[in-house]
């Protein structure tokens, strides 16, 4: 008989078979306490969510790669059975409209994805590289104008404004408005605590309203950015309605901010803790693309990807029943010893290609080429221009995000 979520469980060692989840990281890039035990139960185990609900946790790399593309697993956040990691997300669901791309299944997903895909291709991203480089240099010019020995927050001075400026440029949001989004995107993706649910909700609505107004302005005065193209090729031809377009732009803007900025901050911190690897990167910038993939694997900042089963799925002796919640842990899949040797070690020289840090299946990150370019340029420029860069406080005093949001640090005080 296959094992199901509601089957009674007896365990010889008497430990809790479905531990509370998610678990807060102590260090922003190491596995949180309890992950060793979950990894021992690979490839699939169970966890208990905040509201007492038990869900499946997928931790094995190979099994995860089989499940990610499985169409019986749905990203439909409006399904009342969709598993939620915290009450604040419950509040966000009251919006009654699913976020485009991430929160919908095919065929709606495929239609939306193909609308925006051309702007995220390799050629388009390569054409943006000089722009990305210029933003990186401008931000460092400002930072380095301060006296050596000054403490600055690298997150707000560099890691966040850089991707922000880039996604604003790509979408066609005027540069002078990008500060407006920096803070609001943070509230949407990384605010912690149930009391901030309202704040996250409000930030999302404000961004949505801003973009809706921007669409009107652009209809009067067209330009040549992604948003302009979407207006002329999709909106005015009736292929997308106005609300969907504004929502789509909001999702792109928000996901383009916080994700990359957290990775730039965490990568900097992880490299400072591995000086010999940092030195190797400084000496040979051609190592950067591979290093970025390894850092993605190692930090796995989008650890928990949620799905709901629309049909029964039998896998590895388990029966995932229709309606069950399934959580794919990218961190555990990326640290599966069957797929990666010495999985808990950072090794920028390894071929980390098979990580799932950008997800897998139809929702695999649409911004991954852009994110890679941003990370490569941000890190290479920082290492090159600030040779004496170091943390301004001990690493263990740096605040770590709540466990149910994108992983990252609350600030990154550095000096040089």
């Amino acid at each position, binding site marked *: 008989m296959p094992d199901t979520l509601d089957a009674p469980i007896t365990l010889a060692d008497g430990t809790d078979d479905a531990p509370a989840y998610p678990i807060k990281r102590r260090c922003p890039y190491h596995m949180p306490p309890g992950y060793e035990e979950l990894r021992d139960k690979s490839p699939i185990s169970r966890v208990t969510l905040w509201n007492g609900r038990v869900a499946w946790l997928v931790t094995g790399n190979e099994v995860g790669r089989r499940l*990610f*593309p499985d169409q019986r697993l749905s990203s439909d956040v409006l399904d009342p059975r969709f598993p939620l990691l915290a009450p604040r997300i419950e509040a966000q669901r009251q919006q009654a409209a699913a976020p485009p791309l991430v929160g919908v299944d095919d065929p709606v997903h*495929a239609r939306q*994805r*193909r609308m925006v*895909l*051309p*702007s*995220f*291709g*390799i*050629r388009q991203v390569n054409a943006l590289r000089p722009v990305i480089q210029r933003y990186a240099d401008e931000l460092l010019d400002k930072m380095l104008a301060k006296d050596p020995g000054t403490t600055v927050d690298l997150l707000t001075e560099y890691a966040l404004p850089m991707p922000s400026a880039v996604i604003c440029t790509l979408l066609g949001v005027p540069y002078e408005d990008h500060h407006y989004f920096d803070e609001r995107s943070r509230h949407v993706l990384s605010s912690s605590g149930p009391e901030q649910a309202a704040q996250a909700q409000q930030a999302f609505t404000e961004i949505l309203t801003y973009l809706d107004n921007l669409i009107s302005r652009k209809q009067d005065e067209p330009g040549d950015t992604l948003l302009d193209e979407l207006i002329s090729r999709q909106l005015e031809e009736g292929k997308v309605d106005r609300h969907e377009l504004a929502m789509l732009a909001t999702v792109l803007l928000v996901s383009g901010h916080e994700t990359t900025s957290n990775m730039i901050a965490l990568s900097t911190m992880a490299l400072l803790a591995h000086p010999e690897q940092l030195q190797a990167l400084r000496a040979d910038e051609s190592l950067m693309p591979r290093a970025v993939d390894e850092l993605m694997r190692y930090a796995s900042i989008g650890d928990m990807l949620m799905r709901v089963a629309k049909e029964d799925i039998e896998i590895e002796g388990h029966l995932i029943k229709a309606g069950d919640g399934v959580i794919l842990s990218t961190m555990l899949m990326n640290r599966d010893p069957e797929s990666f040797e010495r999985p808990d070690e950072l090794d920028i020289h390894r071929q980390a*290609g*098979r990580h799932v840090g950008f*997800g*897998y*299946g*139809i929702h*695999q*990150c*649409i911004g*991954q*080429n852009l994110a890679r370019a941003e990370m490569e340029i941000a890190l290479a420029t920082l290492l090159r221009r600030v040779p004496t860069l170091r943390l301004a406080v001990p690493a263990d005093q740096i605040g770590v995000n709540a466990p149910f949001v994108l992983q990252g640090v609350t600030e990154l005080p550095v000096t040089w």
Partner: protein
Amino acid sequence: MHISIDSNRCIGSAQCAVTVPAVFEQDEDGLSTVIAGREDGAGQPLVREAARACPVQAITLTETDRT
């Protein structure tokens, strides 16, 4: 070997084009195609890895008599 891409499944992740740029390329729509004349893999060692990396398994490799 013969390589084909199911363009209905492709989500334009560009994994294939990044892994083996000599065989795969992205078209104007952001979807990937096999470069004309390279359907046999052009002797590129990483073709299999690219097929494996595809997040939606849109790449099919068929063995022919002579690979």
